[in-house]
């Protein structure tokens, strides 16, 4: 509907749209990336539209919205300042009988704007944000990337505001900024939040991780009172993706079951200084071509996680399920795209019989060889469109299907073994 409404707008015909909740993400994801700051669209709770009683109750509000949308409507949350749309309000004030009540009002208001995740937010006051800005040498106005449905500027100050909401410390800022620079360098995809729920896996290499308390030891993916930066940094990154970019719309829940890591993220450090890690176990930073000891933040979009305590590589490989929506459409993307990360604990590494004398490269190769999709299943996946009808493969995908090795062994999920990151963390 969004592209048709916009086609009519571009012909000079004003439009207004009423839609079910489930279509909002795709609808606004169609309109905002075209360069429009806002659009008069009214979003109904889906189940209210399934009954005649529900429709009757909605009609007066829909009528008012239609009249306003076609006559007096203006962008809701933004105002023009030169060649930029900026928020109508640079700050919000909450006056109440007590600090607790004012904070509750702030939390409630930010949730309504889609800027919260439901967990309590800490107030991003001027003094708190200024303190966080001291954690980076970059100026507050530096833009580290433009991203999201509205292609919003991710300025250092806006990121500091969100980091304050998440409860970050100033020294976390370099990691948050680096992760968001990586995330905003990737194309925003309107389809992602509709049918999928990817979350960034943020891997931190180098001595800075230990200095600020990013866990690479016991319970690296969960809470550890000794190293508690992981969850706060992950939450700041998730909140930034939703609130800075959302143009007043904020978090849009996935249409499916969602991902628990959308709360506190997935942030880990690699355990780089364990004596038992020998030859062939260089950290990811070295694998990616940087000198040992480099402070590096690497981000992968993760949709599925298998948290096997023990098992074979083949078992893990069977959990890798490719999605046609993100299947590379050309060789350049195919060659560059990472299929995922295999996280190994030091405990598994040193246990005889489980990893033995294998290196990271050996494990990646075994995973790549095991994670093949039988060709008949791949064809069913890729040759069907979203409505269940037939779809044609492009020349690149056809060349993969015609490859005799792939036809015999099955379609690999990545261009080669080096398209998996193998990371050591936790468990010691």
């Amino acid at each position, binding site marked *: *509907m969004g*592209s*048709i*409404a916009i086609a*009519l*707008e571009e012909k*000079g*015909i*004003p*439009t*207004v749209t*009423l839609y*079910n909740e*489930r*279509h909002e993400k795709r609808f606004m994801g169609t309109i905002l990336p075209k*360069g*429009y*700051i806002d*659009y008069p669209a009214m979003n109904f709770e889906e189940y209210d*539209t*399934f009954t005649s009683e*529900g*429709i009757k109750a*909605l*009609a007066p509000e*829909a*009528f008012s919205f*239609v*009249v306003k949308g*076609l*006559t007096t409507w203006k962008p809701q949350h*933004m105002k*023009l300042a030169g060649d*930029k*749309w*900026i*928020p109508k309000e*640079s700050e*919000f*004030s*909450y*006056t109440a*009988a007590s600090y607790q009540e*004012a*904070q509750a009002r*702030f939390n409630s208001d930010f949730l309504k704007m889609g800027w919260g995740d439901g967990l309590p937010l800490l*107030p*991003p*006051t001027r003094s708190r944000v200024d303190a966080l800005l001291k954690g980076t040498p970059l100026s507050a106005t530096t833009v580290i990337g*433009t991203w999201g449905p509205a*292609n*919003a*500027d991710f*300025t250092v100050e806006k990121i500091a*505001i969100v980091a304050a*909401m998440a409860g970050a410390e100033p020294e976390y800022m370099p990691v948050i900024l680096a992760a968001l620079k990586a995330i905003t360098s990737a194309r925003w995809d309107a389809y992602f939040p509709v049918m999928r729920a990817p979350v960034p896996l943020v891997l931190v290499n180098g001595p800075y991780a230990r200095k600020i308390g990013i866990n690479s030891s016991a319970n690296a993916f969960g809470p550890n009172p000794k190293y508690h930066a992981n969850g706060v940094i992950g939450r700041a990154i998730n*909140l930034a993706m939703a609130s*800075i*970019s*959302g143009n007043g719309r904020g978090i849009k829940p996935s249409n499916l079951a969602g991902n628990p890591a959308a709360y506190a993220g997935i942030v880990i450090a690699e355990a780089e200084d364990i004596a038992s890690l020998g030859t062939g176990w260089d950290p990811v930073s070295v694998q990616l071509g940087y000198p040992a000891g480099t402070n590096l933040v690497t981000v992968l979009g993760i949709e599925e996680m298998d948290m096997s305590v023990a098992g074979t590589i083949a078992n893990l490989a069977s959990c890798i399920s490719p999605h046609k929506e993100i299947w590379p459409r050309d060789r350049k993307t195919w060659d560059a795209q990472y299929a995922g990360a295999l996280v190994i604990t030091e405990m598994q590494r040193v246990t005889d019989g489980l990893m033995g004398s294998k290196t990271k490269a050996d494990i990646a190769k075994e995973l790549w060889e095991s994670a093949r999709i039988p060709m008949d299943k791949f064809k069913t996946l890729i040759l069907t469109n979203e409505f269940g009808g037939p779809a044609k493969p492009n020349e690149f995908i056809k060349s993969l299907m015609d490859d005799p090795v792939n036809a015999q062994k099955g379609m690999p999920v990545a261009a080669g073994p080096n398209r998996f990151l193998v990371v050591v963390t936790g468990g010691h």
Partner: protein
Amino acid sequence: MGLMAALILLPILFSVGKREAAAASQYTLTVLNPQGPVKKGRELAPRLTTLNGKKVAMWLSATRDQVYAGKGAELYDLLERMLKEKFADIQIVPYKDLPMKFGPENEVVAAIEKTKPDAVIAALGG
């Protein structure tokens, strides 16, 4: 005199004290807006000054039997009645006269455009 002055002053001081206590009981929390600025892009079509005397097309993007359409057709029936009550000279292009689908896009746009509407309402689904 001294006693009288004290008697007069006391209520004044008491009153000031009460006002200060009331002011102190209010707490104001000021927080910054996290929304990022956005480069100016395209603008929507100019809005109409009124719907009176205008032709408004109602495009239903799905047929009644498609689940994501909900009861969109019933909503349009109600909206048509309300619009005609409020704007005596409005002309409505009913959804039944337009394609009840959202693709192919160019066909749907052409069909809507063919009715020469001044404005379009799109609803429910697709």
